[in-house]
């Protein structure tokens, strides 16, 4: 029974991955709209783009990790 609850919890934690996907999409989409307005400045900001994506994605990875822990370690 407890294992079942853990599996449900893992499924709930996986929602966080979707939320991270929204975050990453936000970062990339806003970068793209900014880059299309001012393409000359875009090349110098790709590093910032990747840092932003990495930060947004890290939180999704955390929720994925929680899901894994619930699946395999509880």
């Amino acid at each position: 029974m407890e294992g079942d609850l853990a599996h449900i919890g893992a499924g709930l934690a996986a929602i966080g991955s979707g939320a991270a996907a929204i975050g990453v999409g936000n970062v990339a989409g806003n970068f793209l709209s900014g880059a299309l307005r001012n393409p000359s400045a875009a090349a110098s900001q790709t590093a910032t783009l990747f840092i932003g994506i990495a930060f947004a994605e890290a939180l999704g990875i955390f929720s994925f990790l929680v899901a894994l822990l619930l699946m395999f370690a509880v």
Partner: protein
Amino acid sequence: MATETHDAGQAAAEMAHGAAESGAGMPQLDFSTYPNQVFWLVVTLVVIYLILSRVALPRIGGILSERAGTITNDLAAAEDLKVKAAEAEEAYNQALAEARAEAQRIAAEARAEIQVGLDDAIARADAEIAAKAAESEKAIAEIRAGALESIEIVAKDTAAEIVSALGFKSDEAAVTGAVTERMKG
């Protein structure tokens, strides 16, 4: 913060151990493998660092700066060659102009020389022609004088003959006078 996660990880690992015995679990949280992995990781990193900092990076950096130097040198050499080519072209043009002037001079000289010879020859030919023409004129005049004389004689004879043929006695003096008169006219 780090110690906290460590503690949490420890707890999780103990659980993982329990799970691993039952067949499932996250190998990442099996803390018994950590010393082994950390040891080999440190060995790997030290080896890579030594390889990179001693051999690979200085060499690649050297290649890159050498290439930059080569490119700069080549550009300078190309600039040099370009200047030389321009100089050579100028020299060539100058030589060409000189040669052309020389050729013109020679041609003019030759023309003048030929002109002189030609003038000479023309003068000589003119003189010759003039002399020949004068000679011919004289010969023609002689012939003409001879012819006139002959005509007078023939005319007198003919006139006398005609007079006698008509039955008259020809008076030589009168015939001669008349013919001379007519021929003058």
